[in-house]
């Protein structure tokens, strides 16, 4: 029991996590704790390890050193129940990764129906509710490639939400979108944040970061260079790298 008392706070913790791709070290001794209902924004230059970091959180990537705990469960190579952990962590990708052979509704029903043991009727009810939440219930019977990018990304968010995750991970969810579609996705994410979801977002949308983030993490060269509240981060950046980065991105 004693190990489990730590479960809820923090939901995710990283202790000295390092990761290599061959000889290249992509993550260097990362220490991080994320609490329930916290909203984290991760930013940093290209190749700094942002994607690698959040993909380690649901073990789409393996780390080689240190420990990652999610809801008190350690993620490691020989764990038996990685799928159970993954079902509690929603993930939204830059390229949506919807299932093109399934309709929007079927995309949303798949998870609950196939792995949560929820019957079709109930799964459909939930899917419709989530599609309403992301404001595209009328697209339910279309196939993904019949939707705009912004709509597809909102379906991807709905698909994750249907699993009733404890945490949502976003990896540059608006980077593949045409400019005019960025705001519809960000609006959905803001709403999700307001509802109390624990969120970890890799994004360069600094307006979004300012609005919802509890903490902004700045990464460079596989390290966490700086983390702070949005106010401090934008108005009083400590490291030179952060200043340079902000100068580039805020113009």
């Amino acid at each position, binding site marked *: 029991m004693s190990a489990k008392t730590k479960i809820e706070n923090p939901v995710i913790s990283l202790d000295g996590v390092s990761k290599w791709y061959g000889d290249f070290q992509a993550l260097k001794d990362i220490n991080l704790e994320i609490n329930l209902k916290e909203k984290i924004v991760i930013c940093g230059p290209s190749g700094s390890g942002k994607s690698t970091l959040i993909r380690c959180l649901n073990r*789409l990537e393996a780390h080689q050193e240190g420990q990652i705990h999610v809801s008190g469960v350690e993620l490691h190579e020989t764990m038996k129940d990685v*799928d159970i952990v*993954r079902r509690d962590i929603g993930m939204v990708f830059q390229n949506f*990764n*919807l*299932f093109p*052979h399934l309709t929007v509704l079927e995309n949303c029903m*798949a998870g609950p129906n196939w*792995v949560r043991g929820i019957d079709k009727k109930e799964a459909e009810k939930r899917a419709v509710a989530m599609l309403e939440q992301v404001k595209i219930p009328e697209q339910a019977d279309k196939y993904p490639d019949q939707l705009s990018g912004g709509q597809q990304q909102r379906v991807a968010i709905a698909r994750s939400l249907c*699993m009733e995750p404890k945490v949502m991970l976003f990896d540059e969810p608006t980077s593949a979108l045409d400019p005019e579609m960025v705001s519809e996705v960000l609006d959905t994410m803001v709403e999700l944040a307001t509802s109390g979801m624990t969120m970890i977002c890799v994004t360069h949308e600094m307006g979004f970061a300012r609005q919802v983030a509890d903490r902004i993490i700045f990464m460079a060269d596989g390290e966490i260079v700086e983390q702070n509240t949005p106010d401090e981060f934008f108005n009083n950046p400590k490291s030179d790298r952060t200043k340079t980065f902000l100068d580039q991105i805020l113009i």
Partner: protein
Amino acid sequence: MFVDTVIEDKSLHKPAFLLGLSIAVLAFFFAFNLTDTIFGEFLSPVIGNPKESGFFGRLVVSFVLSIIFVLNLLLISFARLKIQILIVWIELFFLFLAFAYSFDLELAYIFIGEPSKLWLMISKGLFTTIYISAVSIAIATAIAIVGAIAKLSNNGFAYAIASFYTSLFRGLPLLLQIYLIYMGLPQLGFMIDAIPSGIAALSLCYGAYMTEIFRAGIQSIPKGQWEASRALGFKFGLILRKIILPQSIPIIVPPTGNQFIAMLKDSSLVSVLGIWELMFMAKKIGAKDFNNLEMLLTAAMIYWALTIILEMIQARIERKYQQKA
């Protein structure tokens, strides 16, 4: 494929091109002296005795032929696409028949006998050919699914076995595999009949080719599909069944259809084991009466008809998946 929306002038409708074409065709026909053939006979009212018609006869024959040929092209070019295709098909088919007719065959031969030779070919030969091919195709497909998964797995044993298998069975001529299985297995103490050996050889050989097709089909699905599925907590088998295979089917179907067609015809190789399929029967029956060509031609037509049916089924399946995509 994208067909351009701008229609170019048909070259056939340009006088200069038509003239050039006519001259070329005339020269072609003139080069082969056709006065001795059925065409010469046909034109004998004009050229007299074909054998004595000489240069004049040769010129007239090739002239008439080239006019017919070019007029034919010109007329067809005015028809709608579908009609064009149909007419050209029919004409080529009749040319093929004429070619076969020129062998001076005794076609009635295949209809005589009680039961007739044709009926024997169909009732026994065709039946056996279809039976062997269908069973082999089913087994080969099962092998291919397992083989493809093994080749994509991280399991060293699975990968090694699968890659050794595809290497070996794609590396040996099918005929050799048939002999090896039929004559080799009994050496190990497995007595195996001709038909099971034939089916084993066909399934193993085509299973190896289809393993590669299935593997490529599965690999062509973007990595993001696996990642999204994994992130939802799906297990490997579920991902394969519900996400990956349904998406690879449209990619797998065309080459697999080609394999089916090729296998149908390669099933003729098992005739070396004395199995009474189409090829064996054609050789056997024909040799008895020295009417080899008649029977071989009959077998050829039956194989051709079968592949046409398979092609139609393949086209229908492809269309079905294209609509969905």
